[in-house]
């Protein structure tokens, strides 16, 4: 039951090369209208045949998956240049390439792999990047992702997210699993198997722990799991529901929803579960789904205090809640971009539940969805992509859309439904 997404036709040429290796297939839809892609010539690195895992196809797949790069034709080169001095840059300018990525690998005496790579600007003829990475032979995928991150950051000015991880829940028949995979769907592993539901996985800001809600004891409890040891702490086990964990930016506290006092209200607790919970509001309404602002001083949350669920903001020190959403009768599941300037959430419109993006400065609202049954959106840690759950042909799938709406992907599992995605932090 591997996570995978399915291949789209225009990219069949590149991705077929990956097919024998891949447990993941990607569906990548790029709307070409007005999309400015950087034309990049990505040459296969020298001596990759000596490696267990070729690095260049992973770099190319990462950069292509971002939707921001267009691969310039690199066929017919003989020999393939592996150093900038070997490049005929006039030829690459003629092919409209803005930059050329090339390099080579070698196996050291101690068995480690040394990867040299260069990114050359075809216009200025300067090396924009010139680096050497040395890794163990079983870290080649990670090295490829680091190279893709470096190229991405150099050419776009944004941090790359190719070395990040995603978590999600898979339900297959009667069993539920909480899984973690690399952002390209490889190296999937199960961190919790259960016969009862699991929801709301949330990465700690440093990526070492996962908070989630488990129904293993037939009622919802909040657990924090150490990812490298598997050790778990039940941090909220009060009467009623314990759910909706959200990490404070310093990783020391969690906001949680507890119904211990008769109705869902938001409390903060220490992440070790040691203190008594501190209640944030006192309403007769449902208050839930808290998320911290990046400065850690307020939370945004869902409340139906106005009669139907809307999104509000409240300072942690206390004070009035400020309403944030005003369109429609059902706005839930708020998540903030890493810079706190954009809000993504789910809006009901008749029979449809859609991902909406709101600019918090201008209040401008944009529909990000291409479907009708969306849930649980979250931002990538560079704020460029929105990951959410959706349903396609009756099955739960994960969907990605770029914040400008131009790039979309879908991920599915071989069996069952996948939902409740959570994007991990930058490494």
């Amino acid at each position, binding site marked *: 039951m591997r996570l995978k997404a399915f291949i789209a036709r225009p990219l069949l040429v590149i991705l077929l090369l990956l097919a024998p290796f891949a447990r993941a297939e990607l569906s990548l839809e790029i709307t070409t209208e007005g999309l400015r892609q950087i034309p990049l010539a990505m040459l296969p690195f020298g001596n990759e045949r000596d490696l267990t895992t070729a690095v260049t196809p992973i770099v190319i797949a990462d950069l292509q998956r971002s939707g921001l790069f267009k691969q310039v034709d690199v066929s017919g080169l003989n020999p393939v240049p592996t150093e900038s001095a070997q490049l005929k840059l006039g030829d690459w300018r003629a092919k409209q390439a803005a930059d050329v990525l090339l390099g080579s690998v070698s196996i050291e005496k101690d068995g480690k792999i040394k990867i040299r790579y260069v990114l050359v600007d075809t216009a200025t003829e300067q090396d924009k990047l010139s680096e050497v990475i040395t890794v163990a032979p079983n870290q080649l995928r990670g090295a490829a992702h680091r190279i893709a991150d470096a190229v991405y950051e150099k050419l776009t000015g944004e941090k790359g997210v190719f070395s990040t991880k995603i978590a999600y829940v898979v339900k297959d028949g009667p069993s539920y699993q909480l899984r973690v995979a690399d952002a390209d769907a490889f190296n999937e592993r199960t961190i919790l198997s259960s016969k009862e539901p699991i*929801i709301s996985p949330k990465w700690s800001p440093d990526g070492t722990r996962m908070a989630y809600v488990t129904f293993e*004891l037939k009622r919802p409890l909040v657990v924090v*799991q150490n990812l490298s040891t598997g050790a778990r702490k039940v941090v909220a086990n009060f009467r009623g529901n314990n759910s909706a964990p959200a990490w404070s930016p310093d990783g020391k506290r969690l906001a949680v929803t507890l119904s211990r006092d008769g109705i869902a209200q938001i409390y903060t607790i220490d992440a070790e579960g040691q203190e008594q919970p501190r209640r944030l509001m006192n309403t007769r309404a*449902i208050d839930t789904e808290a998320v911290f602002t990046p400065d850690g001083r307020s939370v945004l949350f869902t409340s139906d205090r106005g009669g139907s669920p809307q999104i509000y903001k409240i300072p942690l020190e206390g004070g009035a809640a400020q309403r944030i959403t005003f369109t429609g009768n059902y706005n839930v599941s708020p998540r903030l971009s890493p810079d706190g300037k954009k809000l993504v959430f789910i809006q009901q419109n008749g029979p449809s539940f859609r991902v909406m993006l709101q600019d918090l400065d201008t209040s401008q609202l944009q529909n990000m969805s291409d479907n009708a049954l969306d849930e649980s959106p979250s931002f990538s840690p560079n704020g460029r992509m929105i990951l959410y759950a959706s349903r396609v042909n009756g099955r739960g799938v994960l969907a990605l859309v770029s914040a400008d709406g131009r790039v979309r992907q879908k991920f599915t599992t071989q069996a069952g439904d996948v939902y409740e995605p959570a994007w991990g932090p930058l490494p």
Partner: protein
Amino acid sequence: MNKILLSILVAGALAACSSAPPKTGASAPVSETKVAETKPAEAAEKMPEAQPLTAPAADDTPFPTKGQNGALGQRSIFYAFDAFAVTEEYKPVAVAHAGFLAGHSKAKLTLQGNCDERGSREYNLALGSRRAEGVKNMMTLSGAAAEQIEVVSFGKEKPMAEGHDESAWSKNRRVDIVYQGE
């Protein structure tokens, strides 16, 4: 019911078997099966699977037989979308079970709140809880002791009907009455 000892305390620590080997993720990606077996698999960061939590043993407590005639034989109360008040149609069910609790001081039950599949999982968890608390309020007003009634919500996680239309959804918007020991 499993006879397993309770091993959880509020805010207690659970140590998983930290020497347990990582599972599926540590196996080699398909690309590496071409190479000699001595080459190591891609080192996925170790993320071992957690050990399950354990549940308390069940007691011997009285409960009304299921499927009997009348309101006491009914175990579910149903709702309209986003609604949480008990309607006139279902009041007799809440009152009948409250009467059973009032007459059997050792009886205990759990009210399980549920929602249809639409919308946020967490909001639905809260809504399911609100439905169940509403039934509890009605029961305590009808003579049951609050200590005899537990409230839990499954939100939309445990649908009774698996379809994706109003016929299925209406079956899933409900509170179930489940007695301890049955």
